[in-house]
């Protein structure tokens, strides 16, 4: 394959990584907004996910990175809670 194809691959990969980080930030933003408006749900999220206060806020603040399922699970829990 040509050199330009290899460079394209690099660029595409970097784009994927950036998009992934951006998506996690978007998740965090939505989750933090819901928790700010419904602080009583914080304990519920921690309990259902079996995580500590530190773990929750370190990830949502961006201090620590996490797998996509962490963010998705938190948002799913809050989505179900708000439906009730």
């Amino acid at each position, binding site marked *: *394959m040509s050199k330009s*194809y290899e460079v394209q691959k690099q660029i595409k990969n970097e784009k994927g990584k950036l998009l*992934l980080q951006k998506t996690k930030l978007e998740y965090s933003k939505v989750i933090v907004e819901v928790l700010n408006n419904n602080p009583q749900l914080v304990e519920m999220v921690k309990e259902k996910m079996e995580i500590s206060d530190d773990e929750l806020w370190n990830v949502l603040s961006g201090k620590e990175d996490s*797998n996509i*399922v*962490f963010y998705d699970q938190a948002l799913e829990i809050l989505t179900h809670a708000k439906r009730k």
Partner: protein
Amino acid sequence: MDNQIDVLRNHYFQAIEFLQFESDIIDALPNPNFFSFFDIMTGLTEKLGQSAEEMEQMLNKESDSELKEYIKEELESYRFKLKVCKELSENAEELCAIERDAEETGKKSFIFATTSSGNIYLEKDLKDIPEEYYHKVISCLKKIEENYKEDNPEHAKSMNSNNKSLAGIHKMKEFKIRVIYRYLTPDIAYIMGVKMKKDSNSNQDIEFNSMRNSHTFNEFQQLKTETKDEVKKMQLIEENERIKNRIINELEINKRGVKGE
């Protein structure tokens, strides 16, 4: 909010589509630590499958040889991603099945994790546990053996963390003591070690658990294969029963009582 989660998942799927290098793809894929793993995987494999089909159609229509090569590479990338997703899903389903069956199965046998030089990790860890806590270690081991469940679900928790590799790892708790284990089969607990709980230092605990999991991963995978053979499984159970009895006897001899807690 329902719509929001779908939108965000789609953004995630797009990110995966862009990733090209194996290590980045594997790092970005969902881990099975939380149940939304299954929903995300379903959506992701559907999206990747659709895109792979489109690539195949393009490949069949394309006559330019250089473009064909380019499309082939893209198609290979999608196939790799689908293959890894399939493996992750199958492993997660197998883990769920073992966890589910372990809940129902009564008494557990033990297999003790060993270091690369053949020493038992639990015995190694006990050197850092004061003797006045030995009776707590015995209690944890007996509870794991009896598949103890208490109303308080804190006592045996499957550890969730951000770390992909910690899915399916449990800790049995007594005051200040944590015995870490996972299920090799529904009736065999793989005892990975014991630790004193440090007050308010969950990061140290997570690091310990993560390292122990990393050091025992290969042995665990090997034992998973070996225990599929019934004869080998019974041999391992008998051998480790002797080890368990030895450990508990030594703990009984050396333990000191603790006045109140």
